């Protein structure tokens, strides 16, 4: 199987394949990748300072996430796994929400009302089915919207990936599935994840097209996704895109990659860094010079600083789970909320009476 690539390591584009994208958009794309990169760097620091929880950076994978996001429209559905920061930012997720997610706040999974996305998904491959269901809903609604879903190379081993791809093929839904093959599933290397030569060829099992793409080449990712989206909008059904990329950093901040991979391997991939390549391309095309880039760096730094501030100012509503687990609190939850608020008062917190949610019957002791 051939791998679709447009940019070489020096940032030269294959002119036969080079997509037509306006300069302003190309600049925005670079900004998107840069924002994601700098955001990751900041998050890693915040984690070390204990200001957020475990963090999973996507350093090196920005193109594989952003390219597909760029290639779809706002009404299309975007279904991330947990390494789609670049794509999520592009889609309009406030950085502060992403920070809140990694700080252990549901507010970070509360998708903004005007965004057709699902939130970060942790159980790997489970989201493939949601993306397939969303794609199906678009078809049933008679629209030409599509859904695009992400997963990792490791996640392709899960049953849910298989069931999602198979059903997508059967119902011929407008689904694009992007495998971010970053060569590792925590410590498990791609070669031991499956014996198939490529991940793209798995599409053969489902009766639709699979394509392998240089995932560190944002132009190739855009072209591949655009083709797939076009086909999907026209009723041509699903496509599987294997983005060949590399996780340059840790799996998460709880991980120590030195335990399972060599520095040499990482060094080999560094020159393929999507940001470097795309930066060279833009420079060569005179779309972004060093000065322009410096301005972008400043902009991004400000944006990140503001987002950290917003996130850190966030005050969670401590009793929110009682209000959101079900649409209305049944009696037993009302009783438990009362119990909970009594506990909060006992440790000196001020809880207004009206927040007690007392119901007719207390499920706990002695209230009947």
């Amino acid at each position, binding site marked *: 199987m051939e791998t679709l690539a447009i940019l070489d390591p020096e940032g030269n584009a294959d002119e036969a394949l080079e997509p037509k994208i306006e300069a302003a958009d190309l600049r925005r794309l670079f900004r998107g990748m840069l924002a994601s990169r700098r955001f990751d760097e900041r998050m890693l620091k915040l984690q070390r300072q204990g200001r957020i929880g475990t963090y999973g950076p996507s350093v090196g994978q920005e193109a594989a996430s952003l390219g597909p996001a760029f290639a779809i429209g706002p009404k299309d*559905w975007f279904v991330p796994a947990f390494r789609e920061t670049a794509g999520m930012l592009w889609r309009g997720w406030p950085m502060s929400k992403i920070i809140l997610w990694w700080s252990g706040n*549901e*507010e970070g*999974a*509360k*998708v903004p*009302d005007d965004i057709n996305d*699902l*939130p970060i998904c942790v*159980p790997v491959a*489970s989201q*493939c*089915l*949601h*993306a*397939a*269901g*969303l*794609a*199906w*809903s*678009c078809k*049933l*609604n008679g629209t030409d919207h599509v*859904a695009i879903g992400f997963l990792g190379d490791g996640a392709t081993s899960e*049953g*849910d990936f298989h*069931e*999602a791809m*198979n*059903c997508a093929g*059967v119902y011929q839904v407008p689904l694009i599935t992007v495998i971010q093959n970053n060569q590792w599933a925590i410590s498990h290397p791609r070669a031991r994840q499956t014996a198939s030569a490529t991940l793209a060829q798995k599409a053969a099992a489902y009766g639709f097209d699979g394509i392998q793409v240089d995932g560190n080449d944002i132009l190739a990712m855009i072209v591949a996704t655009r083709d797939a989206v076009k086909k999907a909008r026209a009723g041509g059904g699903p496509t599987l895109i294997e983005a060949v990329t590399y996780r340059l950093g840790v799996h998460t901040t709880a991980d120590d990659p030195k335990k399972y991979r060599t520095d040499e391997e990482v060094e080999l991939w560094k020159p393929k860094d999507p940001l470097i390549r795309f930066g060279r391309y833009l420079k060569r095309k005179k779309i972004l010079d060093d000065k322009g880039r410096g301005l972008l760096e400043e902009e991004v730094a400000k944006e990140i600083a503001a987002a950290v501030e917003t996130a850190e100012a966030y005050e969670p509503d401590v009793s*929110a*789970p009682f209000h*959101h*687990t*079900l*649409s209305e609190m*049944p*009696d*037993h939850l009302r009783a438990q909320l009362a119990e909970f608020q009594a506990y909060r008062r006992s440790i000196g917190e001020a809880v207004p009476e009206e927040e007690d949610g007392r119901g*007719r*019957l*207390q*499920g*706990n*002791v*002695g*209230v*009947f």
Partner: protein
Amino acid sequence: MAQMTMVKALNLALREALAEDKKTMIIGEDVGQDEGVFRVTEDLLKEFGPDRVVDTPVAESAIVGLALGLAFNGFRPICEMQFSGFGYCGFAQIENHLSRYRNRTRGRYAAPLVIRMPYGGGIRAIEHHSESREAFFAQMPGLKLVIPSGPRNARALLRASILDPDPVMFYEPKACYRAFREEVPDEPETLPIGKAQVVRAGSDVTLISYGASMRPTLEAAEELEEEHRVDAEVIDLLGLVPMDTETINASVRKTGRCVVVHEAPRTCGPAAEVIARIVENSLMYLEAPIHRVTGYDLVMPFFAMEKYYLPNSQKVVAAAREAVNF
């Protein structure tokens, strides 16, 4: 009003839902052309077409996961698991997503879908077709868990479940599918989810059950009256989540004695929860230990011996008499 079996009554509720709301759809294995292996979806493909009544590949995790995607974009899928024993292939989707989506997105994405599954023994079905594991879903916050016991309440509760804004696990006692008929009104009706019914008033002992075990429980009540002069009150929980703590306790405070009946295994089964809620609220009213007449803590036996292993009226009568004579 028409006399009908539970299968017909469920079919009626589904038809009503499909007719009333274009966003409802049915997905599951063999629900279309075949009309469901129990024929619960009879005529629905014919009436509503293949976009509304959809056969799926044999993939239960997909049924739940696809339904979630559909629901996020405004559809109201009603999923059928062919048997509850195969529903566990979709367990992770239920635990990790269906039950959590509303809370984790703070209401942005609710998942108002219904998962119907036939459960329980008593129809001489082959291995893996007869167990009762409804308690799994009672331990999973974020779901409702509804279990009808007869044609009329099945229709009303299924309708209520479909209309409910929360995800509902709808356990159908397959032993009751065709066991008896009841009058079911022509007009659509609902029953409140989480409200138990006192189906027989009595003063000596409270018998609490739901689903397929309601029949032996009611038979036991008759027998207790006729043969032992024991006047039993019988409560049909009609589900497990929410559980109607109030009705349970009001009755037990009156009778002071209680027997809880279900097919599910005993340890960490639904009866334990009923007992805990009685102890929390009405301990001092109890005149005797509460008995559990349940499935034993055994793998559900193959069908040749299943009748020994299911709760029946003799077992309930014996337990109730022990409670009364304590």
